[in-house]
């Protein structure tokens, strides 16, 4: 789907109510923040997230997205935490700085927290149509206009990328020299960005009129062509997940106080 991560499918994960999946995402976020160490975090990832993605038939895209997102964190954190966290176990010397075992472990722990949190979000995005998620949120009280803003910008930004590309190519064809000093390059930005931004703003008027013509600002209840499948079991599960999150947060606070 244009501009999103969503991979279509008909698995059980795909068919879960979007709010159930959103609740799971928040649970994984709470796991990321509260699980005590690297082992726990990696175990949770392998035991919960990986099988869930396999259930959705999304194992490959899920692991690939995770890898793309987490690799820069692993590198940055290994270097920054590894070299600049004091510790007793020197592993590696570089230009007077020492990579310590404790630092590397601390860095990888933070990276695994990030993996847990963003992995949950990625799984939600991979398995849920954005419009279904927004529909579920709208039914729970989110203003419809906010759903419109999110969904429309997701769908039209690739068009703006194309437009930016066209402007870049046109300027280059007219002999725009990229290899000049930094101040000249800064001044180049206005002729490049200006037309893109300006034409988009002028478009807004027509877009707003098109919305009005489709009864966008009509007061009163709105309906939907799309149907959301829910079940009492899922409803109960969402409450259960909420309680579990609260329990985890409570446990983590208790641990912090008692130590």
């Amino acid at each position, binding site marked *: 789907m244009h*501009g*999103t*991560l969503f991979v279509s499918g008909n698995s059980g994960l795909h068919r879960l109510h979007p709010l159930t999946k959103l609740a799971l995402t928040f649970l994984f976020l709470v796991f990321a923040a509260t699980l005590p160490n690297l082992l726990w975090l990696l175990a949770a990832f392998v035991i919960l997230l990986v099988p869930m993605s396999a259930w959705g038939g999304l194992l490959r895209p899920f692991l690939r997205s995770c890898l793309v*997102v987490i690799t*820069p*964190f692993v590198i*940055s*954190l290994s*270097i*920054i*935490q590894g070299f*600049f966290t004091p510790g007793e176990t020197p592993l590696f010397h570089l230009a007077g700085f020492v990579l310590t075992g404790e630092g590397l472990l*601390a*860095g990888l722990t*933070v*990276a695994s927290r*990030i993996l847990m949190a963003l992995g949950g*979000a*990625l799984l939600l*995005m991979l398995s849920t149509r*954005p419009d279904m998620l927004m529909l579920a949120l709208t039914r729970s009280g989110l203003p419809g*206009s*906010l759903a*419109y*803003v*999110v969904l*429309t*910008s*997701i769908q*039209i*930004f690739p*068009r*703006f*990328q194309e437009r*930016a590309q066209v*402007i*870049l190519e046109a300027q280059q064809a007219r002999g725009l020299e*990229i*290899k000049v000093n930094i101040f000249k*390059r*800064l001044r180049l*930005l*206005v002729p*490049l*960005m*200006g037309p*893109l*931004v*300006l034409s*988009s*703003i*002028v*478009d*807004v*008027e027509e*877009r*707003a009129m098109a*919305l*009005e013509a489709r009864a966008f*600002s009509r007061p009163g209840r709105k309906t939907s062509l799309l149907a959301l499948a829910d079940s009492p079991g899922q409803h109960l599960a969402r409450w259960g997940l909420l309680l579990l999150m609260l329990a985890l947060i409570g446990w983590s606070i208790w641990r912090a106080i008692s130590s």
Partner: protein
Amino acid sequence: MNGFRKEFSTFSIALMAVAIAINIGAGQIPRAVGLPLYLDSIGTVLVGVLVGPWAGALTGFLANVVWTFTGLFPQAIAWAGVAAIIGALAGVFAQSGWLKEWWRAALAGLITGVVAAILSAPIAAYVFGGVTGNAGTDAIVAAWRAAGFDALFSNVAQGTMSDPLDKIVTYLIVWAVLLALPQRLKARFGNQSGQAAKTRARKRR
């Protein structure tokens, strides 16, 4: 709350969607020109300036939600609050008439950049272990750490090296766009002081 409601007409809602598309879609231009800038808040600042602080704040927040949705930069959601403040500030600067001269717009960008750097740093330092997941900025953070500074200071220092320039350029582009925007369209938004639409006596031909 009248001002709040006025900021959420169909017109400004349509503008917000386009603004977020600009935030995300225009990002390749500075890279193509070879400048170390993000320019990912032009749309947010534009909404703040044209519509008002509430709309600007909402645009900034939703822009980061959309970044997460697209999977291009899923960690963006952590900085959604900072993006909201950037949008709100733009609204306030415009209401104070700071978008009229280019140098005051640049000053507004400078202030926004410093505020953004200070607010973003603790998120990087405490949530992401002192990094952002962007190789360029993380290299600068590493340099500060190597010089002996702590995580928070290094992230603030990195931010103040890149954010003010980024936001100054953002504001200058917005200033130039305002200059070129047809008066009729500007009057439709009417967040800028001293630009009240003139209603002249009407006559028939």
